[in-house]
């Protein structure tokens, strides 16, 4: 019940945007994720109820998009591009470096809940390769030094 109660206005606003309720599934899931940190099972149930679809239909969408998290993630979600342009310019080494610094493997979250690390597909920023995104900020032309600097600022 949390979404409709806590975020009643936001839900209303999203629903108004679309003639068909189903179209609101993704924005509503996004709202769930921003509120709870990830897409919670309760959130899925609620989105299904609001939009009149089955739980399976919502889950299909959640699991299709990697930007929806099905498990809690750290405060800083580091997404490193490992597609061709970035790889040619050393993305693999950057991932290794991050893994070493954070003490976790890609796909994991640090014990203190501060960092999550993942590799992602092309971020559409090949001209600035290699790149990564932390939460919603893009960091271009990376080197290991730059990464250390960036991590220092994350607390």
């Amino acid at each position, binding site marked *: 019940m949390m979404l409709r109660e806590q975020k009643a206005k936001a839900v209303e606003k999203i629903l108004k945007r679309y003639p068909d309720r189903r179209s609101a599934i993704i924005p509503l899931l996004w709202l769930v994720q921003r509120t709870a940190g990830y897409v919670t099972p309760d959130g899925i149930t609620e989105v299904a109820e609001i939009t009149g679809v*089955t739980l399976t*239909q919502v*889950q299909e969408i959640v699991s299709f998009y990697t930007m929806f998290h099905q498990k809690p993630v750290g405060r800083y979600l580091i997404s490193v591009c490992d597609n061709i342009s970035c790889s040619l310019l050393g993305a693999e080494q950057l991932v290794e470096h991050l893994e070493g610094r954070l003490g976790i493997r890609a796909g994991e979250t640090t014990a203190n809940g501060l960092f999550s690390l993942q590799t992602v597909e092309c971020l559409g920023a090949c001209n600035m390769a290699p790149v990564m995104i932390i939460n919603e900020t893009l960091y271009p032309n990376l080197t290991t030094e730059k990464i250390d600097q960036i991590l220092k600022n994350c607390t």
Partner: protein
Amino acid sequence: MPDAATTQKTSNVTLTIDGRSLTVPEGTMIIEAAKSIGIYIPHYCYHPALSIAGSCRLCLVEIKGMPKLQIACSIPVKEGMEVFTNTEEVKDARIGMMEFLLANHPLDCPVCDRGGECMLQRFSVDYGIAHTRFMDQKRRFRKPQFDPLIDIERNRCILCTRCVRFCDEIAGEHVMGVFNRGEQNYIGTYGDGPVSNIFSGNVIDLCPVGTLTSKPFRFQARVWELHQLQTTCPYCASGCPVTCWTRDGKVCRTTPPIRKDKGKYVLDEDTTEFICNQGRFGLDIGHHAERLRHPIIRNNGPDAPVTWDEAIQAAAQGLRRIRNEHGPQAVAFLASPSATCEELYLFQRLARSVIGTNNIDWRGHLASPDIAAAFSLAMSTANGMLDDLSEIECVLVLNCDLLHEAPVTALKLREAARKANIELLLLGHHIDSWLATHAKAYLQCLPDQEHALIYALDQAIAKAEPEPTSADVDTIRELSGAGKETVESLITSLRSAGSGVIVYGVSEIWSHLASTVVDDLVALRNTLGPQWALLPVNPERNASGAFATGCQSDRLPGSGCDNQKTWEKLESLWGKVPLVRAAGLSAPDILEQASLGEIKGLVVLGSDALLRHPKPERVNQALKTLEHLVVIDVFPSSTTEQAHVVLPGALFTEKDGTYIDAEGRLARLCKGDDPPEDARDNWQILGELAKALGTEFPYQRLDDVFAELMNLLHPPCPFTLEELAPEGPGAECPIRCITKPSDRFHVLAGKYHALASSFRPTCHVRFAELPTAHAEEKIPPTVESGPGLILTWAPILQGRDHWGGRSPTMAPLRPSPYIEIHPSNAKELAVQTGDAVELRMGELRLLLRAIVCAGPAPGTVHVASNLVDLPLGDYLTRLPRVQLKKVEGKQT
């Protein structure tokens, strides 16, 4: 019917496929066009009943003038098109596609249950390559618990989405889905829960590979080792043809009917004849431990098994004594509507010509003679068929939870409505919420207002004006609480339909309303005109057969309007014995007279109807008072426990015979096993009983019984029982003959044909020559006054009161006791689907699972009466009110 669709259907297109010219309707896909001239295009994702996915790309064909190969499943034919299905390029492409599909496949055929009927195996033979170029690790998924009866092995999945589309489109809920993406795509349900719909078993047949297989059948046998028994499902009046796959007579699995392919019978993976889970999983009870296996004579001592001879003699002796001492009217006969036509015919012959009484009936589940009279009226005015839905424009369903009474009939109706081939209208105090999603309009009303609503509709339609008058519309609105548009559109649909059928569920018409409602429906049908027909749906498999064979006190076998002639014909057929023409008692009267001691001897053929009686105490009281009770049955029950002689009979897989379904189709039941131990085929038991009573039946074989019965129907069936069997000339279509119990008998040589054009009301007989013995008392319809919600009820197919309730396989699919609540009432109670609610009715407290749906009318709630213990027998003349309360913290 929409004009566009009609014109579209009529324009044709000519094209060539592999050099052969053909003409097909515009809009046909190449794959179907090819099939129509016997050219098979390999495919996985395409299925004729489902929407087109175009994902497997195995159906690639070459089309002249197109630069690339095209998928035959989603390219419609065009005038002058030249298609090639077997060129080198096409073969090459198929080999390539197969390599893709097999790249991640585990190739575990030796341990896969699909082996032998797998489409992946089949096309690998034609287009597979012996090696793989895929070097990486194959992807692997964990195996969840999933559904109680459907096994899932995701590694074998080729993601054709047939299962997903079936659940979404046909079963009506998107419960299965494709999760993740790319290489990690997999099939499943949310949280790996069950595939929760009553048609779910069909995904097993639809899956072209071994991903979805049957759990009860898992590792039981290889399909080619099994014997295929083509027969008909014994569970409901939809009357689906089915194939039982048996080994040593034991049913291993049940599927839709098989088809002949290259001289071999195979399961058709493109079958559109879906069956429900009850038929698929519930037929395995032949070898049940609790079966009756030996005849029993009960003399107040322990039940020692006796020989058949002793048992038959004891049974006959008691009956003879009562007949001699008290006259034949002191004996009565109650049959089960699940017995075959042949058994029922012999049973009533036993009653009428051997004992000499018309006290014979099949309606042991009815509580009052009034409702029995309504049943008689309903059955004798039945003439509707839904066989060829393309010939019908409008279907009105009154008070019928068709999904839970005759699931496949519901499925066919919903499909037709979904594809806009028919206009579906729903009416009454309890509508089928599953059908409601595709209904054009529905009207709901309180149970005591039904006849008024039907009458008002009748009046509105009867008027000559093109538009319904506002006064009529207002009356209907007042009764139904529906909006103006809804009422007007419903009336317009009814009036403008060129042909239509009124379907109604007889199990939801209570005694005090029954006759009135049926009367009103007949009047409405007459107002709508001769192009409209009535179709009462009895949940029992062979209620129509019981009616047609004269297993009813006020009905003779096959009789139309002229009973005098039928009496004479029967007398000459049955060895010139004069038949007693005194009125017989209907089942409710038989029970009453038995408890009064007037009826002293009773023969029961199958006790399942009696077990559904709303007042079990009344049945027990009646049976206890009897001097002599003979029961022929397959399972022990409260009835067999009271019997003086128990004769163990045969179950549906152990006997031959025929059934007639709700729509009047005759279907052949085939024997694939022997009855267990001493149990015998019922028709032989009846013959022995007759013989012991001094009349030898002249039938050598069951065929003779069938032939005699069919000769009483008009016109007679041209086939013998033998010819209706799988390889016989009458076997071309799965259900071969179409009969209306009262006046028609259609035989369709090999193919269904348009019956709608021959719709005409049956002669409106009220079986005049055989008066009902009981004076008809009409109690005015009432509902208990006071606060609370009105309780209504009906049995469901999946309930526990039938043989199907014995199947251990079906146990996990049986719904937990539930109560349907209308959304408006649910809101007041703050109840959601899945919540536990407490029902209070006087002293009674029941914990039920809430289902919030449009089924019950606002102000009413509905329960499946054979899932709960409710003293409903006290409420035969007035409907009870109940209080509901949400039970906090409990989820059911």
